[in-house]
């Protein structure tokens, strides 16, 4: 699918993953809850002798306090810095020397740790995840070093990337009260002030078995794995988790607009509309709407803005229903050289107006559904994506049943439902519009100092 790689914070948030259609489970995954509250999902997929392990902590940028943004993400980095049993970097070393790959990511609603291993090494992955759930060191010196690393990460992903900055600013303006307005990587000034004690408090508060979900997908047997999970995670004590209240975003009363100026090449327009999440009745219609707008070279934004009018170099619109709180339906366009923000915005507006005024064609609707359903089947190719779907649906509260109901929900969307969704949600009063205004280079090429 034709999705922008520019939307928030590649890898830190992995927005592109969140937009993939749900992967199907032929049979529902095995599920169990340990006595300490750890929820477990196991999906047996014997096609290759490998398995993916993911631990989902139900905490992310959404749970940070003002002045402490970036804390969930910095703690994610610290989870690789040693436990009372395994020293700094040992987690990565042990996974690698057993032929595995590993990483982690932090998003608004979750912090996720994963490893991909040969299935006969699953036990090792589980041992190490259980270990760092309970025994993290959080060495003060390491904490300060890692804080520097994360500041470099922010410079690379956001500060030196004009498009990321535009999206960051757009979210900050669209969400005045709700934490989705704060960047997951954190404001630079906040990151600079985070302390080892902040990390320790966050870890002790949120990293408990009863606030986590373990997902294993691959060539494994639930029957054989459960005793291992019981042995590795079962003895970790549960603690009650008290969440701070989250300020709900109040309905937006009128369009918000902003301009971001910095050295860049081409004008970019960002627009974000407040929409309901998966729990709203219109989620499927909005998903189909996003597909009609952006999926493939025959989609409306590509065909009209890129192909015919040639006002855009790229244009996208889309929506991910799987968030805990309502998020944005976004539009994003980069102007072709020689074209302006105003032209681009007018073209985007014209596409939105068409969706509000005219019913989409029968064939166009069928094409969008075919695309979503084919994507759903192709998604099953990867254990990792299937584990992601389980983790995401559980994490936001939709439940794994959401995966199975995906096909009928998409099939049920009508032309009228698409038009109604466009009329109800893509309204100017509920949107934030941002322009990236490129400034010319400020200086001339340098030469090496003597």
């Amino acid at each position, binding site marked *: 699918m034709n999705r922008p790689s520019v939307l928030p914070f590649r890898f830190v948030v992995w927005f592109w993953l969140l937009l993939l259609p749900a992967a199907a489970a032929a049979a529902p995954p095995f599920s169990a809850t340990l006595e300490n509250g750890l929820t477990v999902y196991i999906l047996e997929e014997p096609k*290759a*002798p*490998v398995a993916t392990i993911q631990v989902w902590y139900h905490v992310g940028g959404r749970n940070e306090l003002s002045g402490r943004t970036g804390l969930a993400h910095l703690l994610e980095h610290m989870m690789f810095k040693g436990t009372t049993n395994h020293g*700094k*970097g040992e987690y*990565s*070393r042990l996974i*690698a*020397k*057993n*032929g*595995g790959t590993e990483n982690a990511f932090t998003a608004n609603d979750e912090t996720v740790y994963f490893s*991909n291993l*040969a*299935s*006969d090494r699953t036990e*090792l992955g589980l*041992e*190490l995840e*259980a*270990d760092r759930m*309970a025994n993290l060191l959080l060495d003060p010196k390491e904490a300060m*070093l890692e804080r*520097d*690393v994360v500041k*470099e990460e922010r*410079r*690379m992903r956001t500060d*030196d*990337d004009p498009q990321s900055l535009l999206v960051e600013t757009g979210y900050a303006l669209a969400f005045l009260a709700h934490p989705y307005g704060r960047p997951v990587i954190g404001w630079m000034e906040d990151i600079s002030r985070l302390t080892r004690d902040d990390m320790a408090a966050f870890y002790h508060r949120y990293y408990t078995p009863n606030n986590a979900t373990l997902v294993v997908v691959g060539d494994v047997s639930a029957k054989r794995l459960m005793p291992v999970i019981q042995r590795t995670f079962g003895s970790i004590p549960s603690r009650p988790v008290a969440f701070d209240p989250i300020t709900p975003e109040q309905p937006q009363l009128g369009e918000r607009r902003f301009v971001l100026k910095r*050295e*860049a*090449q*081409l004008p970019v327009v960002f627009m974000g509309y407040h929409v309901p999440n998966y729990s709203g009745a219109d989620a499927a219609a909005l998903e189909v709407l996003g597909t009609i707008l952006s*999926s*493939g*070279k*025959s*989609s409306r934004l590509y*065909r009209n803005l890129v192909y015919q009018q*040639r006002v855009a*170099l790229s244009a996208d619109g889309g929506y991910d229903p799987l968030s805990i709180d309502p998020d944005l339906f976004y539009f994003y366009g980069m102007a*072709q*050289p020689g074209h302006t923000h105003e032209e681009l915005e007018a073209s985007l507006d014209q596409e939105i107006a068409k969706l509000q005024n005219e019913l989409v064609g029968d064939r166009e609707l*069928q*094409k969008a559904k075919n695309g*979503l*359903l*084919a994507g759903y*089947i*192709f998604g*099953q*190719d*990867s254990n990792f994506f299937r584990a992601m779907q389980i983790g995401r649906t559980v994490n936001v509260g939709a439940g794994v049943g959401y995966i199975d109901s995906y096909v009928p929900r998409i099939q049920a969307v009508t032309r009228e439902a698409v038009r109604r969704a466009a009329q109800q949600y893509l309204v100017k009063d509920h949107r934030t519009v941002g322009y990236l205004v490129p400034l010319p280079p*400020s*200086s001339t*090429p*340098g030469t*090496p*100092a003597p």
Partner: protein
Amino acid sequence: MALLAALGLALLVVAPPSAQAAAIKPVRWVTKSGIDVLFVERHSLPTVHLQLLIKAGGALDPKGREGTANLAASLLDEGTDSRSSQQIAEAVDFIGASLSASASPESTVISLNVLKKDLKAGMELFSDVLLHPAFPEEELKRVRQQIIGGLIAEEDEPEAVAHKAWQELVYGTHPFHHPTEGYRESLPAITREELIAFHHRYYQPRLAIVAVVGDLTRKEVERLLADHLGQWKNSDQQAPPTVPAPNPTAPQTKLIDKELTQSTIILGHLGLSRNHPDYYAVSVMNYILGGGGFSSRLMKQIRDNQGLVYGLSSGFHAMKAGGSFSIDLQTKNATANQALAETMKVIGQFQADGATQQELDEAKAYLIGSFPLRMDTNAKLVGLLTSLEFYNLGLGYLNDYPKKIAAVTLADVKRVAARYIRPDQMTMVVVAKQSEAKIASPKGGS
């Protein structure tokens, strides 16, 4: 938690995981017209992944026409003798398929991912764009403008800017020096006739590899290729195109000034080709130095112990005709010189002392043990098959790779570290706010 640690230790004896790559048994045959076919039968999903590789890419672009191979690939689905650009897009999207084509320096790859139930429709489109592209003048103008727009947009990506500049310096006049997309200056010169000629000359069955993975039998694949590519004829019998090996250029330093908070630094020189017998020793050596993520020396020293970088890696980019070695890193402008000096220190020490036995064992265990993860989806497998055939590695590669890695010794690592990393020969590009980075001397004072 002593129990946990003890159990952990028991598991951690270095031995390759049991996952057997050998469980995947590709079959290979050559069609009458000379298409080299590889196929793996996989019935777990009702899907088909198909890739066709043409042994011609950007390195064959005529001088002054850089970007020809990529422009030709980009125009395949923009109109054929019987279908317009929009008709093709509509038909592909209607069956939820993906059909794409792209060029790299040495090859062009056209991919089709399609549900099995729509395979016939998908293959009709695939063969139409491959065999009968019309290169319409109007679409050529449009796509060219779009590629040029993309090149302009890329100037906001420090890594892309640094890499392009570095490649030009390292490859000098060799065809690998130019970006596959071409230049803003060269693209306007490319004509429709030149694209047709490029297609005629290189898009031939005898220069093609097809890999198929999916819910089919060999018989079905044979019929599919006969039905849809059976009419594809060789247009000539000229010798297959070759690209000469690159020659080293003199080390240079280039500083590019931009309003950035970080310095993006690339340094390195020529490397080795994919078919070189040292490739496997080099893979192990590079894993230890800077290719092995958090297990590598560069990452441990410069990120974990000093907090100077987020991104840092070393890599050998090995192609058929030759390749390159580079170290890529980003650090805030104020620490550019420090990060560079530390990088050179790590390299110097590594070359002087070589690897430890533990590093060697762990590198080999990772490379062998993670091999199955490189083919655990149909999408990954089809790409792996195409490239192992392109590099003439043979179907035995799936079994041979672990053996070749296992055979690498400490002496090999030391030898290839000395031979393929040459600190005094490094070409460096720094994209940064130069007034803050103040690059002291090339290669950080080595």
